[in-house]
């Protein structure tokens, strides 16, 4: 059965704390931390971008499973911060990992869910017999306008998944998407920072899509929250995923392992996938995992995974939470330089 053969993650070492951002804008860090549920976020170095994050995560995935890189015949990179507006990130990743030159490749963009969309495409291509192994990456170095509420959460990081039929560590039991045209968050061509609909990003956008997709996939598989060991939802902040989990009937124990947002922020296309990776880091054979992403605009991709025996012998070090611990704290001055908020003319 088609599933995940391997996975890899990348979280930049730099972090900035909510206190440091609040200090610059004269805001109350404590109320932001409790209101947003984000304490600090991962910041890409000056020489890190979506392409480098994607390559590093993909290389880790390849190294862990030992598949020769030429056997990868599909590469999809999902991001809303591709380094080029026109010119794919996927070709950079394919070249850097040494993927087969006869390779399906494309960049995907669907706000924060382009990574899971890539996984769905790989699942379909493997099922169709078009490829043996496909690589799906979700990575971002998300931007936020200085002083905006997003500045506390918009972070950098990513995860990569090799999808195939042999030696899977987790099988994809089912996947579906729920899609509507809901403009809750967007960035117009040529604009440096995204805009959002404020509180409109909540009910009609995040909650409606995540809830509906998760509810529907459980319903059509005759499963209920108790049937899952873990659930992972997209994490734009610390509040939304905990609230939607409660709405669906999941306990806080089921979501805690994947709740990486408090410590690294919202890594956009990488967000739910990094949470899912953190869960895979500890998952045991037979355990069932619900993953539901969310992309503004808007849509949710839901997946049901079942962990296989192969995970026992699969190397999972270093784990996502270990990478989260490897943090180097920076001040707002360095942050502004790294995120190119200083204009070099």
């Amino acid at each position: 059965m088609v599933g995940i053969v391997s996975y890899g993650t990348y979280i930049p070492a730099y972090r900035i704390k909510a206190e440091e951002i609040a200090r610059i804008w004269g805001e109350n860090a404590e109320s932001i931390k409790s209101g947003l549920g984000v304490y600090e976020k991962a910041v890409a170095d000056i020489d890190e971008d979506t392409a480098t994050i994607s390559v590093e995560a993909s290389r880790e995935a390849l190294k862990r499973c030992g598949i020769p890189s030429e056997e990868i015949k599909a590469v999809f990179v999902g991001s809303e911060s591709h380094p080029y507006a026109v010119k794919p990130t996927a070709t950079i990743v394919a070249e850097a990992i040494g993927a087969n030159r006869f390779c399906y490749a494309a960049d995907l963009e669907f706000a924060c869910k382009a990574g899971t969309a890539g996984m769905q495409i790989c699942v379909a291509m493997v099922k169709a017999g078009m490829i043996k192994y496909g690589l799906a990456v979700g990575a971002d170095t998300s931007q936020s306008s200085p002083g905006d509420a997003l500045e506390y959460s918009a972070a950098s990081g990513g995860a990569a998944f090799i999808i195939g039929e042999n030696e899977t560590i987790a099988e994809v039991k089912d996947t579906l998407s729920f899609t509507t045209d809901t403009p809750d968050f967007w960035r117009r061509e040529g604009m440096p920072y995204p805009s959002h609909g404020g509180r409109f990003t909540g009910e009609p956008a995040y909650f409606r899509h995540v809830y509906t997709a998760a509810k529907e996939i459980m319903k059509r598989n005759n499963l209920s929250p108790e049937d899952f060991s873990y659930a992972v939802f997209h994490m734009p902040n610390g509040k939304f995923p905990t609230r939607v989990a409660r709405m669906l009937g999941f306990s806080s124990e089921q979501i805690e392992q994947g709740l990486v947002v408090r410590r690294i922020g919202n890594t956009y296309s990488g967000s739910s996938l990094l949470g899912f990776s953190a869960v895979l880091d500890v998952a045991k054979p037979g355990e069932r995992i619900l993953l539901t992403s969310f992309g503004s605009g808007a849509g949710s991709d839901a997946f049901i995974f079942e962990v296989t025996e192969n995970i026992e012998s699969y190397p999972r070090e270093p784990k996502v939470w270990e990478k989260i611990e490897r943090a180097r704290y920076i001040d707002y001055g360095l942050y502004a330089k790294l995120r190119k908020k200083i204009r070099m003319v």
Partner: protein
Amino acid sequence: MLPRFWRKIKYRYRLVGSYCENCGEYYHPPRNLCPKCRRKGSIKEVPLGSEGTILSYTVVHDAPDDFKLQKPYVVGLVKLDCGAVVTAQICCKPEEVEIGKRVRAVFRKYSEEGEDGIIYYGTKFELI
């Protein structure tokens, strides 16, 4: 510069180089001719591995325009375990670098041809 960068992109992104089957020496960047064996040599393309040791380093303060935002940055000579030596940036704080420290290859951005130009990616090293 674009075709010049593109032509060797494989060797910039990955540590792939040359191996001379006659003398057993490894080279990066790849060579068409073994400098030890010349016509007697037999050059083959091989992966060079991703770990090595710092032979020398410097912290660059006076940076060219393309590297201004990165300064101060660390440049080093890294001897890969196969014996080939590469010149590359080392991703660490200036005070952390030392001759003899072990490093591992990472994929990073080097520079770009201005805001509207292409981006040059390549291999850097991080301390193990």
